[in-house]
């Protein structure tokens, strides 16, 4: 833990360093236009937890150091692929990229295709919602390798490397596990003995691959999100990723649900039939609400962690005084250590609830 703490402390100081570079850059870049640009923490934090086309590492504006990633779009005229660096770090819709006679802009990390004949993006205020809306462009189907997709690949490769090497080590050494296997085996056995078996019962073996995969996917994904050097990718805190994982649980549940489960939903036992009118829709909706709860729990917990860390570091920049680091750094450190716990906890909760829901669906009838 002490080593972790030390590393964390170092990494956090780098985050702070990155912020300061960013601030200088933005002040220099836009200083001529405005007298003084206020540091907008809300925008920065939200920008950070959202997906983006490039893998931003350091700096801001034109000077930013960003790993360019492929933008892959499916338009009415077919597939379009180009590097995210062609936007030149612009995500305000100013820089127009022309491909195959189509014009694309990056507006708030979303690629828009300008309608024919338009030369630049136009936005207008929607009076009802009070938000800016794009008026002269449409969104093509977007399969870009974004920051989150890139992180997803890294995560998948990392997990594959870890666990195939663990699996190999068992072939060489069938006795007490050593090295990496010694670290991973307690977790694997934990998922089996404390998550799968108590919640699913004797049919647990069928669901072990899914539960183990989802557990390590979320846990290691959460930890990747805590590493500042690689720009804290908020993969598991992404609503889409959380939703996709929850849909996996839901689909596995629906495929394996037995008659008893459905009869409990559509014919709640021990209830007067008149109540079925109310209960059946509630029970049926409950199946999907469970998946929704899984999504929101994971997304909200992880995203909140990211926003708290950024907000605490942001204190320094809102106040514009390095002395605030005396307060901000210890608090950030505390939250980061807490986030290490949350990383494991959310992986556990997601897996445990998945196992619980699946367990209810495959439970043997006992009435």
């Amino acid at each position: 833990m002490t080593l972790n703490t030390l590393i964390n402390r170092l990494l956090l100081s780098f985050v702070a360093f990155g912020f300061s570079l960013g601030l200088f850059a933005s002040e220099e870049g836009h200083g001529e236009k405005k007298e003084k640009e206020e540091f907008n923490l809300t925008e920065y934090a939200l920008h950070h937890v959202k997906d983006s086309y490039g893998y931003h590492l350091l700096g801001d504006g034109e000077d930013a150091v960003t790993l360019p990633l492929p933008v892959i779009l499916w338009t009415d005229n077919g597939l379009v692929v180009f590097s995210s660096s062609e936007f030149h770090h612009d995500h305000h819709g100013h820089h127009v990229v022309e491909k195959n006679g189509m014009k694309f802009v990056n507006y708030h990390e979303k690629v828009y295709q300008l309608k024919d004949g338009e030369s630049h993006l136009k936005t207008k205020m929607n009076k009802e919602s009070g938000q800016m809306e794009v008026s002269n462009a449409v969104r093509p189907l977007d399969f870009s390798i974004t920051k989150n997709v890139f992180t997803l690949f890294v995560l998948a490769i990392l997990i594959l490397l870890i666990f195939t090497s663990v699996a190999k080590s068992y072939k060489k050494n069938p006795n007490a596990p050593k090295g990496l296997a010694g670290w991973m085996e307690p977790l694997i056995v934990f998922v089996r003995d404390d998550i799968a078996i108590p919640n699913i019962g004797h049919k647990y073996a069928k669901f072990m691959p899914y539960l183990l995969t989802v557990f390590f996917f979320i846990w290691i994904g959460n930890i990747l999100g805590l590493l500042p050097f690689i720009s804290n990718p908020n993969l598991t805190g992404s609503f889409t990723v959380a939703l996709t994982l929850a849909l996996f649980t839901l689909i596995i549940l629906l495929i394996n649900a037995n008659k008893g489960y459905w009869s409990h939903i559509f014919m709640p036992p021990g209830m007067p039939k008149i109540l079925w009118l109310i209960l059946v829709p509630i029970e049926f909706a409950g199946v999907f609400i469970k998946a929704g709860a899984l999504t929101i729990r994971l997304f909200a917990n992880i995203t909140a962690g990211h926003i708290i860390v950024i907000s605490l570091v942001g204190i320094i920049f809102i106040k514009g005084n390095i002395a605030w680091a005396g307060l901000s750094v210890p608090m950030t450190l505390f939250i980061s250590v807490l986030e290490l716990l949350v990383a494991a906890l959310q992986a556990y909760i997601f897996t445990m609830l998945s196992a619980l829901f699946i367990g209810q669906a495959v439970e043997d009838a006992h009435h």
Partner: protein
Amino acid sequence: MDLVLPSVGLMFWTTLVFAILLFLLAKYAWKPILGAVKAREEKINNALEAAEKAQKEMQELQSKNEDLLKEARAERDTMMKEAKETSIRLVEEAKAKSKEEAGKIIEDARKSIEMEKTAAIAELKAQVASISLEIAERILEGELASDSKQKALADKLAEDINLN
């Protein structure tokens, strides 16, 4: 708001990557790992069971040994006792026998002595008789050597008879 709007592209990639990851891990990681863990657990359980069994057997063997020892001791005791009894009996018997034998020998001796005695007495008697006859012969020869002597004897005999 678009923080909570799902993005189609990311969902597509996540589904694809997660499904592939699930497939690969299930085949190349979870199956061998869980198999190895289970095999080892079974091995450990078996070893523990075997050890327990061996211990039980050992205990049984030990108690059996003790029983055997006890039995052997008891047997030894009874054997010793019997042997003692036998020896005592044998001695007694021998004593009685020897006594009897001795008595018999003495009896025999006595009988033979008696017989010898009787035979000796009989012989003595016979000898005495023959000697007496010789003496009597010689006396008679002497007595009857002359007529006077014959007459005196006749007289004497006659006197004896008279007296009778």
